[in-house]
């Protein structure tokens, strides 16, 4: 194709650094760790001395965290890569080779790859926490040989917070979205490349702090952090608050880039009607973060202030603990749409290319994505129907149930796309189909929690646990792995092993359902959530769920091995292995450091989902107009 010839010629002159990996390239990582830990201990210790206390107390832990975070960032390369030149200092060198993966930099592609690695590591650790929970629940009584009740509470809190904010919040948006958004929109990079680079470097210290929170006393509130329990069940809550706020801020930096790139940096000819559906999904998620996350920051800071500064927003005889619930859920309900909307968009991005059909009812699909993000802003109250006055129930019940209408458009579009097509089912497509089936259960069981009479019984039982695992694990994680498989050739130039991909897809599907479906029944049978000890009549069903969950957990080693092995030894893939019309596939794979050379840019001349036999190429390459 002429397209790639233009590319090939000019790219040979780009002279990208081809140095192979050397251990010295890890230097920024080591420096960041050293500076971060030094900064933390120095600041925490000095604060403790000044206030005549010990460093595990809330105040020194807070000061230490803030200072440690800044030192970590400086060590990671933010100093020479950004701050120094921003103050008129020496220009930073551009790292174009392998080195860029291990230091702060403006390259969205290496940032995205770092996201994938971090998400996998976090998923593994938080998954271990889940295994610990299920081991505890093997027996109904208190298990002295395993976790104490305090440790159990800390474990599910860490599991919940890290799975949500450390994994699903950034799995698709970060690992897949940040890589693809410039390529799909036809630009070389996002609008604020350094902010995007910064967003990843905020995550490791935040994640580390949350995992280490038991060392300063842990927190027993679960991932909600509800006061006043937050203020009297361990100092670890300060790392929960700071870690969550840091990760949310990282998401916000990404959201600003997504929205700004989508609005201002589309290629010539890419009208809003031609923007790829995945970018629409990211945009819908980004608007949620920009508009709704502020409320939750205020809640987090006030929770922290009650802990360290002596204010009484939520505690004491004049506190209003319910206000925290309002502030917290104002974002954290829509936040689940930040997780799932990009997953929806992944389905609708993959299915047309796999079925060789145009995206069915595209306008309705976009209305669905944007509609969910807008309706989602107004319904956090359904998370605490048992706490609010009667007057608030009908309104929030109605709005919550309405969300199922735009959500349905995604299924409408997906079914219409497959219908009459020729669906080529590889591991990625299989995972997408399974994610659709899982999310369907997750979505339908959500209606029960939206419906106040049913919710008054089902709230805070295992029914809810099952419901959101069907959406988050069954929906988002399945789609995430599907996306990793589908775009794996784009990033590495190789394909994954299809047999093992399909094998573990079925493995997941079976054991996922065996683990979580019984939780619906356990909920109806009266098992409330967040308990280390339950009544013996629930023993059999818990035993079954625990054993299934061990198989499910072990199964995650298969895709890990598949990704690692295929990255080095997988079969070589051509530039566009799935025959997709997507703009991101029209450039070389793996994507060069500069995706397409100086003087060239794409112009969109047609829809990217026209797979009819006589269809024209959707993109042509034109010389960059001189200003």
């Amino acid at each position, binding site marked *: 194709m002429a397209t790639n010839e233009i590319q090939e010629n000019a790219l040979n002159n780009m002279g990208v650094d081809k140095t192979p990996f050397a251990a010295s390239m890890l230097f920024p990582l080591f420096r960041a760790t050293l500076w971060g830990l030094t900064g933390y201990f120095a600041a925490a210790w000095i604060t403790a001395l000044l206030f005549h206390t010990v460093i595990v107390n809330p105040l020194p832990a807070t000061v230490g965290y803030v200072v440690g975070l800044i030192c970590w960032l400086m060590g990671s390369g933010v100093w020479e890569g950004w701050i120094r030149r921003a103050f008129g200092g020496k220009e930073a060198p551009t790292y174009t080779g392998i080195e860029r993966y291990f230091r702060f930099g*403006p*390259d969205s592609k290496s940032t995205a790859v770092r996201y994938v690695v971090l998400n996998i590591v976090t998923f593994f650790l938080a998954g271990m926490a889940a295994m610990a929970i299920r081991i505890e629940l093997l027996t109904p009584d208190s298990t002295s040989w395993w976790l104490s009740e305090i440790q159990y509470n800390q474990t599910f809190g860490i599991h919940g917070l890290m799975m949500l904010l450390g994994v699903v919040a950034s799995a698709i948006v970060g690992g897949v979205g940040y890589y693809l958004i410039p390529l799909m929109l036809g630009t070389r*990079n996002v*609008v604020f490349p350094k902010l995007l680079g910064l967003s990843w470097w905020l995550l490791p210290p935040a994640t580390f702090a949350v995992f280490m929170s038991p060392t300063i006393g842990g927190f027993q509130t679960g991932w909600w952090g509800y006061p006043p329990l937050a203020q009297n069940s361990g100092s670890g809550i300060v790392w929960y608050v700071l870690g969550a706020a840091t990760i949310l801020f990282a998401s916000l930096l990404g959201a600003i*880039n997504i929205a*700004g790139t989508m609005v201002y*940096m589309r290629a010539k000819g890419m009208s809003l009607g031609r923007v790829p559906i995945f970018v629409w999904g990211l945009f819908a998620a980004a608007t949620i973060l920009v508009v709704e996350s502020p409320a939750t920051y205020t809640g987090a800071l006030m929770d922290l202030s009650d802990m360290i500064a002596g204010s009484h927003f939520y505690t004491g005889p004049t506190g209003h603990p319910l206000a925290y619930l309002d502030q917290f859920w104002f974002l954290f309900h829509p936040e689940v749409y930040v997780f799932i909307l990009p997953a929806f968009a992944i389905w609708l991005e993959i299915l047309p290319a796999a079925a060789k059909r145009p995206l069915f009812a595209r306008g309705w699909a976009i209305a669905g994505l944007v509609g969910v993000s807008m309706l989602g802003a107004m319904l956090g109250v359904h998370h605490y129907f048992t706490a609010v006055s009667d007057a608030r129930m009908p309104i929030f019940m109605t709005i919550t149930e309405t969300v199922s209408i735009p959500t349905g458009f995604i299924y409408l579009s997906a079914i219409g796309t497959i219908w009459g097509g020729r669906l080529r089912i590889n591991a990625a497509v299989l995972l997408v189909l399974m994610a659709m089936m899982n999310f369907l259960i997750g979505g339908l069981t959500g209606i029960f929690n939206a419906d106040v009479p049913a919710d008054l019984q089902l709230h805070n039982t295992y029914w809810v646990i099952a419901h959101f695992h069907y959406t988050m694990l069954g929906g988002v994680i399945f789609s995430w792995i599907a996306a990793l498989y589908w775009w794996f050739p784009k990033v590495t130039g190789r394909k994954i092993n299809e047999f093992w991909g399909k094998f573990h897809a079925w493995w997941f599907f079976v054991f996922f359902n065996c683990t979580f479906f019984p939780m619906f029944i356990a909920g109806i049978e009266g098992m409330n959530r967040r308990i280390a000890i339950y009544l013996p009549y629930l023993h059999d069903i818990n035993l079954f769920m625990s054993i299934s969950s061990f198989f499910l957990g072990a199964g995650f080693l298969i895709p890990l091995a598949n990704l690692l092995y295929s990255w080095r030894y997988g079969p070589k893939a051509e530039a566009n292995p799935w025959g997709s019309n997507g703009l991101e596939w029209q450039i070389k794979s793996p994507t060069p450091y500069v995706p397409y050379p100086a003087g060239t840019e794409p112009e969109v001349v047609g829809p990217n989902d026209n797979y009819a036999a006589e269809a024209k190429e959707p993109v042509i390459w034109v010389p960059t107009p001189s200003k």
Partner: protein
Amino acid sequence: MTDNSYAKLMDPASERAKRGAFFFLILFAAIIFAMWDLARFLWGGTAVPATLNMGVGVALTVLMLVSLVPVMAARKKLDQGDDAGIVSSLATLIVVSLVMAGGIVYSWTTLTIGSGYGGIYDITSLWFLVHFVAAILALLASIMKITRTPERAKSERWVSYNVLTFWGGVVILWVAFFIVFYIA
């Protein structure tokens, strides 16, 4: 001549994009203050404690409004491409930031954080303090970049524009803060 360095190629956003996308950040920052402005009545009731120094509040607000003059001057110089000319305006804003920070810290001494009003006043003004510290750093960066590397500053004027946009946003938010916390 077109700049085809890696740094330029991999930061392709136009000045319009850089300045436009910045408003998403401003929107985010504004909503945080909106939450606290609204929450003030939940925790603080409708009364304003007598210990709060109204004179300081009025003075700080007037100062914020007057600070729009150097902002306007700096914007005009930026429009004209006269980067060197804006340094004094930006330096003025640094001084204003320092005075504002001092005023905020002083007002903390007049309130008790444990009381409803004191808590919400303190946390909101603390968040303003964070913004003023950020403003000082950003202004300093702009000044130093202009004086040390005028060429680079010329090609990255959007940074200075965004700093001024940020300042304008803080002024509006401060006025809202004054109305809600001192008058209402």
